[in-house]
């Protein structure tokens, strides 16, 4: 039998005495894959320490922090950073407000059919991808798009609804909704419905029950969702470029431009490294202060 042959090969290559190292070996491929990313970051970190010679378009040999000083000195980068952080904060707030009731209804509904419809409605956009969804919004919100046609029919408009800040934020909310709902839902499932019923049977209005019972108990899910939504919004490239049309760049767009427009890989690397540091520090702070939420891989579940 095939399996016996394989078993013999395994015994030869990996005798029982080696078993204590098994888990390390099982982890090797995954560790190696992530190492590709780490190596790339290290490479980029090194590149960020060299200055581009604007006359010869060669990168210098010497190590210098000049690129980082350049970022600090240019007001453009501060504006882009401020716009990205503010945008990510607004997007996170709006997304969570929309996502929580959705997750709640999806988990609590008595009808299996309703649950299925809500799940499919969530997964469909999640699986369709950012570019296609942004394209759909262009058709709806564009200058000669669906909404302006409707407005035109009643004598209004046309309104400019794309290539501005709100349209970027709007696109981000729509893009991130499924992430938020899928991270919140397990936390809602973990709440015993009896506790809510107890609160309500003691006379608490449902809003009070929500505020004092449901939301605090769903905190792990809300924390995870807030972290993921904020980071993904802060670092997004597609929505600012497609729905913002270059008028409302986020940090990722600034990185791209530094590399491909100004062709300054040192400066681009430095901006990217700063973004990586911001995102990592943010995740670290939130996770230490508020706990891993539903993001942790294994520890909490045992």
């Amino acid at each position, binding site marked *: 039998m095939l399996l016996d042959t394989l*078993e013999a090969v395994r015994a030869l290559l990996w005798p029982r005495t080696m078993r204590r190292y098994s888990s390390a070996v*099982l982890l090797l491929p995954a560790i190696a894959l992530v190492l590709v990313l780490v190596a790339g970051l290290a490479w980029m970190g090194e590149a960020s320490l060299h200055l581009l010679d604007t006359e010869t378009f060669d990168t210098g040999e010497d190590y210098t922090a000049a690129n980082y000083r350049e970022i600090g000195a240019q007001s453009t980068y501060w504006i882009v950073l401020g716009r990205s952080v503010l945008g990510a904060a607004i997007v996170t707030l709006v997304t969570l407000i929309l996502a929580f009731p959705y997750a709640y209804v999806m988990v609590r509904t008595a009808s299996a059919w309703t649950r299925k419809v*809500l799940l499919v409605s969530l*997964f469909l956009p999640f699986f369709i991808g950012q570019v296609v969804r942004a394209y759909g919004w262009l058709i709806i919100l564009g200058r000669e798009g669906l909404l302006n046609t409707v407005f035109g029919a009643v004598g209004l408009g046309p309104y400019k609804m794309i290539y501005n800040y709100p349209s970027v934020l709007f696109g981000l909310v729509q893009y991130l909704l499924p992430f938020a709902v899928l991270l919140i839902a397990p936390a809602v499932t*973990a709440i015993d419905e009896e506790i809510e019923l107890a609160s309500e049977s003691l006379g608490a209005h*449902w809003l009070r029950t929500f505020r004092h019972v449901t939301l605090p108990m769903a905190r792990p899910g809300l924390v995870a969702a807030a972290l993921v939504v904020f980071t993904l919004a802060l670092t997004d*490239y*597609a929505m600012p470029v497609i729905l913002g049309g270059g008028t409302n760049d986020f940090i990722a767009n600034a990185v791209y431009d530094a590399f491909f427009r100004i062709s300054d890989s040192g400066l681009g*690397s430095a901006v990217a490294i700063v973004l990586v540091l911001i995102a990592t520090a943010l995740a670290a702070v939130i996770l230490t202060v508020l706990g891993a939420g539903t993001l942790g891989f294994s520890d909490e579940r045992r």
Partner: protein
Amino acid sequence: MNGARSKAVVLWTVVAVNLILLAAPTLIILGASVTTGNIITFPPDGFSLKWYGKVFGSAVLRDAFVRSLWVSLVCTVIAVPAGTLAALALARSRIRFAKLLQLYLLLPFTVPLIGAGMGMLMLFGELGILGELWAVGLACCVINLPFMIWAVLASANALDADLENAAANCGAAPLHAFCTVTLPAVAPGIITGALLMFVLAFNEFLVSLLLTDANTVTLPVSIYNSIRNVITPDLAAVSVVYILVATAAIALLDRWVGLEIFLKSK
């Protein structure tokens, strides 16, 4: 009861807003793809499949589609064994430095895509594999790997370790026990993870944009390049490919695993 009424009204209103937001782009693309006119207008000029014909006839789009499939396949083929083995190791044994290892394996999620993508662009350039399609697949696998590990881990944590021990006690050799006890038990997780990896790679835009050149553009990049010019209905017809792939993936996921798995608390 009045309270229960107002609760249902408020919650369902928000859900309705969500549903409109989530469905609008998909519906509009479906509608626009069958218009008769040369530009997208509303109401549509009439029903026609001519844009689909144009898309099928376009070698550029067909090639981009095939390349995207190839990238997704490479990504999935690497991710399934690597992610499954890692998840089993994480679930089963007490590993030294477990916490540190978790943080390390979560790096693809915490490192912003533009950072990961630019880093890999520079690294791949140095290694001379930039422009290779399989390298794009590898990159997609790296950035989404936590999804694969997480999916298998969810199943593996539900597996009773005693089952594996029982198999071993009954004399099953390790590989035999693995194939007959462990693998079937985590199969739902592997299927979920594999579908996620495939679909996410098929959709991956930024990393594809960075790592492909004019000869190796994938479908999302090719759609993006066209959006920047004139928006014509043939683009909507291409986008329907995404809607079909997404629908197929959801149908498979629901049939093999059940979408409700995503609601389970850990």
